[in-house]
């Protein structure tokens, strides 16, 4: 008798909620160009999808992985892709070259770029690089951070023997290279696995006046101007997904495993755990951006000759969506 009544009530509630005229409009199709291949680096996005945060915003999302040889700016510039996850420094450069894109939030507020040396090498700061060999990526903007650091410290780059980093830590492990570039949420993790009981010194550009954002969510100028509501909804769901990922790494990794190229749960979890401090530092909400940081990145790019001429900061990013999301 009682249980029947309960069921009836539940049914009524279900019918009523189904009646609610909420999802009449078809969901917006959103394509997201990721910065790199599918991995836990983007756990927040996967979590947002898995937890139905995008669905709640009436968004049907499709993730496109990045990789070697993929221009992650192309799609978002010509409108094929709705959003793209790119490096903040590359955004500035691409913007300067005329790509009509701007940042709406920064996911990785701390750049994972780090220089690594063995503790017993005595290398603790960039000053100690002099006369040593450093493995760096052959091109790309990451080397900018390295050079900016040297500039800040007044070190002549020619006194340092730079070699190409080949995405292989073997030269470093073998001692052929004194210092190697690494990425906190990426290559650093397998490296740490391989060093055994030896210790590493991490030299962060942030300690020497170089504060670069990393993964930044960008959108086309036209989209920002014409469909701000979509941008806001997508951003809201994305940030919610990242929060969820930080608070529930296990669940987020589960979501990541649907996509991840490396189908190793432990690897993905380690990556996520390593990326959490880069995403959520405790200073300001997730995704937040600060003028001084953008200005600092821009100034360094200009000083280092990457930018030919100074650029208007307001073209690079907009705070209006973050301010809406966080109700400021």
């Amino acid at each position, binding site marked *: 008798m009682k249980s029947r009544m309960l069921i009836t009530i539940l049914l009524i509630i279900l019918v009523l909620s189904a009646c609610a005229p909420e999802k009449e409009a078809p969901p917006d199709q959103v394509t997201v160009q990721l910065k790199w291949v599918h991995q836990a680096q983007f756990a927040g996005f996967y979590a947002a999808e898995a937890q139905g945060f995008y669905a709640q915003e009436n968004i049907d999302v499709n993730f496109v992985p990045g990789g070697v040889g993929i221009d992650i700016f192309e799609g978002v510039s010509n409108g094929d892709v709705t959003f793209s996850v790119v490096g903040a420094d590359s955004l500035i450069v691409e913007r300067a070259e005329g790509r009509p894109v701007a940042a709406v939030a920064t996911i990785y507020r701390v750049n994972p770029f780090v220089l690594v040396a063995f503790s017993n090498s005595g290398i603790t700061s960039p000053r100690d690089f002099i006369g040593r060999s450093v493995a760096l990526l052959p091109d790309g903007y990451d080397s900018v951070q390295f050079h900016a650091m040297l500039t800040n410290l007044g070190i002549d780059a020619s006194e340092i023997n730079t070699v190409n980093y080949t995405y292989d830590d073997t030269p470093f492990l073998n001692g052929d290279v004194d210092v190697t570039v690494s990425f906190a949420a990426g290559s650093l993790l397998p490296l740490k696995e391989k060093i055994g009981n030896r210790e590493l010194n991490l030299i962060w550009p*942030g300690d020497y006046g170089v504060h670069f954002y990393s993964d930044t969510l960008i959108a086309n100028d036209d989209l920002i101007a014409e469909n701000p509501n979509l941008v806001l909804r997508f951003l809201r769901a994305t940030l919610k997904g990242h*929060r969820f990922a*930080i608070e529930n790494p296990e669940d987020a990794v589960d979501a990541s495993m649907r996509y991840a190229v490396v189908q190793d749960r432990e690897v993905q979890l380690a990556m996520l755990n390593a990326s959490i*401090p880069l995403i959520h530092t*405790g200073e300001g*909400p997730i995704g937040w951006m600060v003028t001084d940081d953008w200005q600092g990145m821009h100034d360094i790019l200009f000083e280092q000759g990457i930018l030919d001429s100074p650029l208007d900061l307001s073209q690079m990013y907009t705070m209006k969506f973050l301010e809406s999301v966080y109700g400021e």
Partner: protein
Amino acid sequence: MVSSMNQIKSYWNRLGFRFTILFVFLAILPMVVVGVQAYFTASAALEQDVINRLATITLLKESEFNRWNNNNQELLRLLAQRPLVREYATALVLLDERDNIEFEGLRRNLLQDHLQPTLDVESSYIDLALIRARDGLVLVSTDETLEGKYRESDDFFIQGKLDTFVQHPVYHLGEEKAIMHISTPVTDNDGRVVMVLSGHVDLNEMSKIQTRRSNFSASEETYIVNHSNLLITETRFETGAALRKSIFTQGVTSCLAGNDGFGFYDDYRGIPVVGYYRWMAEENLCLLTEEDQAEAFLAVEQLFATTLFTIIVAVIVSVGLGLLTTRSITRPLQELEQRAASLATSLYEPLPTEEMGRFEEIVSLNQSFDQMASEIHERDRHLEEQVLARTAEVQEKAKELELANEFLQQHTWDLTLVNEVNSSLLQGDSLDEIIDVFAEKTREMYAPSKDKGAAILLLSDDGDQLILKNKPVNKELDQRIQKLFGAKDPEIRIPLHSDNLHQQVIQSGEPRLFTQSDEIDMWFRDFINETWIKQPWLLNQARKLAPQIRKIIGDNCIAAIPLTVESEPIGLIEISAETPLTKEDVQRLKIIANQLAVSIQRTRHEEEIHALREFNESIVQTVPGAIMAQDPNGYFTFVNPEAVNLLGYQPDELIGKHWKLLTPTDQHEIIFAADERRSQGIVDSYEIELEHKNGQRLPVIIKGSPRFDSFSGEFSGSLVILTDISQIRQAEEAILKEKNFSDDMINSLPGIFCLFDVDGKFIHWNQNFLEITGYTAEEMKRAHPNDFIVAEDQIKSQEAIINGFAEGRVYLEARFKTKYGPTPYYFVGSRTLIEGEPHLMGTAIDISDRVMAEETLKQRTVELERSNQDLERFAYIASHDLQEPLRKVQAFGDRLRSKYEDKLDERGIDYLLRMQETARRGQEMVEDLLTYSRVSTRGQKFESVNLTQVVNKVIEELKTSIDLTDALVSVGILPTINADANQVHQLLHHLLDNALKFHRPDTPPVIRINVDEGDSNQVVLSVCDNGIGFDVQFLEKVFQPFQRLHGRHDYPGTGIGLAICQKIVERHGGSISASSIPEKGSIFTITIPIRNENKRGVIFND
């Protein structure tokens, strides 16, 4: 349906059923009420207890946190303020940090002597560092790996340069952990910040503080959340959540909004908790203490269960009890019921008590029932006896009633008397009538058969005597007394002495009853006194007759009752009765006497009041003012003849009417307001317009005084005096008209008008003033006269105002400043006294036209003078230059004549001569012209010139002509003047020469030169001749250059002479005129100022 209803009804009517219901109800109601109340009170108390506990824990944690935080800060501050630290820090920042021995020494000192020891003592800090203020470089750190790094963009560095700063915990990548920085500035001796001392605090300590449990409850926990909803301490239920987990519970949200308080909500685990939160504004942190609701309210739930259980048990017990009790009551009752039925049939048999059950009440009921049965039988027996006894009693009462009736009859007399007196009083009878009525009635009562009765004696005004007031009723006595003493219808007066009985009665104030013959004699002796019998011997004789009087009257009893009002004696009543009077009679008489006394007194007062009112009315009727009286509601109660006169209404037309009759509608308010004021006791006067009966408006001043009842103190109406002020009004209107007239006059003035006092305050002004200045009347009240004068002229105007007040009249030409711009005005100010105070009255007219004309004139004059000068110079130059060719013509002519005269025929000679003549004339004219122009261009300085000498010289020069013409020249006494000597000479020469030249052919010239000094300032010189004269039509022409009236051949000359004369005179500031009669002569009159200003000479080079 019906049957079930009946069934219920029948159940309801049964005692047992009702008792059961009652018991259940009585048991449930208090239990439920008490239970529910207890539950709510207890649960509220428990809830409050939980909240209080959580609040206490939160506050304790907060203060613990604060203490920890403050200690950390204090430690850092103390370190930063050490003199050596400051000295080394100052030195360190000046040195290059690289490969510098000195730098390394200082660094080591700081590290080993200061930073490291502090760190060792205080465990809260993990490391300490000194950061260079100018670039954020870590110079010294207990953690060597930090040295050489830059902290330039970190909050703790930026804020730490300003003051001690606590950065809320953040994850620091470089150090791979969440850290909390505390920083403080290090300054040099000049107060400049050279370094920032910073320390990393062990966050685990903070977590420890928060997770340390209070042991009050199992589920309680405390944690801290930062402003980004991020958990910064560890929680009990999830490890490693610090700086990772964001919490968005209701408690956190409310707290981050800056609130302190508590709430019931689901915590971050989704479990319902009671939470208490505090916002720590300084640290930007939220501190929360939460406890699971399940635990917190466990006691409340238990209490609820207990209460419910108790209620159910109580209900069951009371139902059982109710059933048992009712059964033990109803059964004996049924028994009694049966026996009562048997009582009527006399088959009644008492039942043994034991059979009635155990209840005392039932037992005693049974006993009472038995007793009642036996008493009912007893009653029956006694009933008859009682009826008999009652009958006897009733008869006795009937007798008593009869007696009472008799008594009542006796008292009826008294009442009748009082009634009579009262009715006569009410009818407004006079005092005499009241006394007569009273005496008559008393007599009827006490001496109905004989001609005796009551005498009413009242005290005289001076209190010396008693005077009989009622008519003597005993005619026999009256006649005898008349016969005895020869007095006819005397007024009976009894003087009061200490030895007479009347006096005694009056003084004692108590009634007396005289029954003894000698007393009665004594009483009557009082009547026989010197007011009747003037001779003492006769008086004594008469007094012996007292017993005879008694016999005549046959009195055997006299009652004397004093009349008193408020214990003051006013007289007495004397009753002579046939039968002896009893004390009761006296008492009764005393009551009646009191009534009479009051009546007498009241009647007397009324008479007095009546007299007074008549007096007042006679005054009111005769005074010259219009007086009216009104009741409190404004209805007239009285009007005097003067008021009738004033208003035209008859008294009966006004009395009982309201003020509205007299006042036009627009004045009603005034009347109502006045009534309102008067009702409050205010005496005042006000102006109002009334309406005469003939409809004319009548301005009056009403002075009203309120009257209040002397007993109740209530407002009883007013007395108003009306004063006709129509004449005053007319006078005022006349004044107003006059004022309007003067206003109109002032406003019609063409210029402006104003009036102001010594302070410059404007009192009055005309319409023009406002229109011209653009000021409003309101602005005028604040304006000052100088506001209307342009700044440049203000000194002048101020002076004029002062002079105006001082001298009474002043003139001023100044620019009048208006809102539309300045305009020149000519002001006339004159002082006037208003109410004894000096005021300045100003009128002014626009003189802009005149000023403009003057300006134009001045300009014209200047232009004219310049053009004159130009002309003169032209004339001078021209004539000067013309001379040359003429002279050449002359010279070549001469040469032609001297050398070629022989070669010319006569016509040629004639032409030559005519040419030479013409040239000569031209030369002459040029010379004259030159002379003419030289008057202005070559004038000499003015000097003292003796005219006599000049004239004599001229006569000398013209001697030839005088002689030729046989002229007679007479010269009067001529003065000395200030002038250009040469020109004066020239002037007189020309005039004299002319007079000689234009003489009549057959008459020798007679010339008179005279001076008529009509004025001390100027000299009037006339030159009079008897020559040919000229027609007046040529008066203008004669002074124009080269104008000739006569043919050249008749009278030689170029005709420039008089023109030169005029020019000379003008240069001297004088004038020349001529008058003439043809063929009779001419008079040339020159007027020249004597004291000419010293003109400088004008010289042009030739």
